[in-house]
């Protein structure tokens, strides 16, 4: 079954993504995301940085730490995230992974 069978709806490309509050640390995280997810698309509305990908979006602690130049606990992502689209499938000490289950 595909949702595109809904009458009147024109299906578009599927994506996942995270919305971050626009502040210093988030900008570092976004740089790390872009390094680790080359297909990531970054856009901005006032106060918000939106990062989207088509298949999966992975945040790696090690890359974020390189960007921020200090230690970063993945739980600190709570201080930046304001919304997301997709399914957070992993959130451990080293990685955060957002994707859909079927892809």
């Amino acid at each position, binding site marked *: 079954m595909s949702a595109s069978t809904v009458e009147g709806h024109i299906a578009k490309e599927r994506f996942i993504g995270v919305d971050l509050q626009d502040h210093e640390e988030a900008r570092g995280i976004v740089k790390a995301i872009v390094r680790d997810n080359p297909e990531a698309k970054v856009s901005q509305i006032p106060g*918000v940085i939106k990062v989207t990908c088509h298949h999966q979006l992975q945040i790696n602690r090690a890359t974020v730490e390189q960007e921020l130049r200090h230690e970063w606990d993945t739980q600190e992502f709570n201080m930046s995230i304001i919304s997301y689209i997709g399914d*957070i499938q992993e959130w451990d000490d080293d990685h955060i992974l957002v994707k859909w289950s079927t892809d």
Partner: protein
Amino acid sequence: MARKLGLRETYAAMTRGVNWTPSYVKEEEAFPYHQFEGIKIHDWDKWEDPFRMTVDNYWKYQSEKDRRLYAVLDSFSQNQGHLNISDGRYLNAIKLFLQGVTPLEYMAHRHFMFIARYMPGPGTRMAALCQSIDELRHTQIEIHSMSPYNKYYSGFHSMRKMHDRVWYLSVPKSYFDDAVTAGPFEFLTAISFSFEYLLTNLLFVPFMSGAAYNGDLPTTTFGFSAQSDESRHMTLGLQVIKFLLEQDEANVPIVQRWLDKWFWRGYRLNSLVAAMMDYMLPKKVMSWKEAFELYFEQQMLDGLFPDLARYGIKPPMGVEQAIKEKEKISHETYWALYNFGFAAAFNTWIPTNSELDWMTEKYPATFDRYYRPRYEKAQKIVDENGRFFMLGLPQLCQVCQIPMIFTEPDDPGKICFRSSTYKAEKYHFCSDGCKQIFDWEPEKYVQSWLPVHEIYKGNCGGPSVPEVLDWYGIQPGDNGEYQGSVDQLNWASWHKDFAPV
């Protein structure tokens, strides 16, 4: 010395295994509510909570969030920040938020305590406990963020009493009352999944980006701060649904029915958001139609539903109609608010010419044909005789409690009426969706506290308009036309005195 544990192991040690099955009292006496809805759970340990938030980390991150938030609020007050918003009209969107949404945050706070108390699984209880106190936070930071506005503007002064009494606020109130009076799994499906995941971006992001576009610092600040908790709530919502669907196949049709009901309930509630987005923001973010296409059609229909199809879940009842209605729902709703604006605790107005042009551009198929002529006529009446209002009482939908203002899905010229007869009494609905919801549970919806009926029954302060408005707590200036209102006059004079540098 013990080895350092990872996030996953620490969280598991903290939350799992602390619960136990009582043996000195009967289990069904201690946990009496998780079975009557017919949901089957075989293994509560299959519950996954990706956020893995322990209490110590909760205190740490949340107190940091609050520290940042209250610093902004203090500075906003100290610097007369309210003068920096785009236009005085803008605040009417925020009055609607405080009156309509803030009391719902509080309802969520109380009822997540019910989930934390009565669900037997420790992971679920921990997630619900955190969400409950998050929702208390949201209630309070919203009250605190709007408090500086209350000191200078109409319509902010009496949110809770209004929420309990005023006609258009029975739309959000009945929505949440419906959820908390349902069983615990239906509540989770309604609030955690349908409200917090399926519709959350549609409900909150327009308000928050609207605030950011219109220079409303307190709302932007609490909004983003609350949204950061909200992403935990979204995770809980998706987890609830996946957990129910994975535990037993027999849960699938039950969940589908709840999804059908709560999509439609939430979507109808969102018609107020639609009106707010298209009409109340002096600086527009995006149209309702664009928001619906992005946040619902693309993110949910194209994004989420293929994941749920694995379990046999279909897009919810009424989705085709909602897609058709994206061309008209904001216009039909705002027109009703404009007409009945004498009894609302916010101001309404005729859109400016450039705003009308914006709507023509955003709604080429419908706006010039159906809606622009209304405002041109309204403007003519204003020019000739002054502002008109509909002084009669509208008929309300028995389920969503919105006046019968919506048109047939395929005919924007014809009002849609549906009805059902239950125990020899006839009940009226705005749509097939609301009629279906009634037919599923008539014994619930015959109880609805319908504001118009209650006025007729004499339960709202008296039979005359001034008596009802007084009972609502509406004070002069709260209601009616924006042009010439207390807020508009003040806004004009403050901006004359405080010349921009």
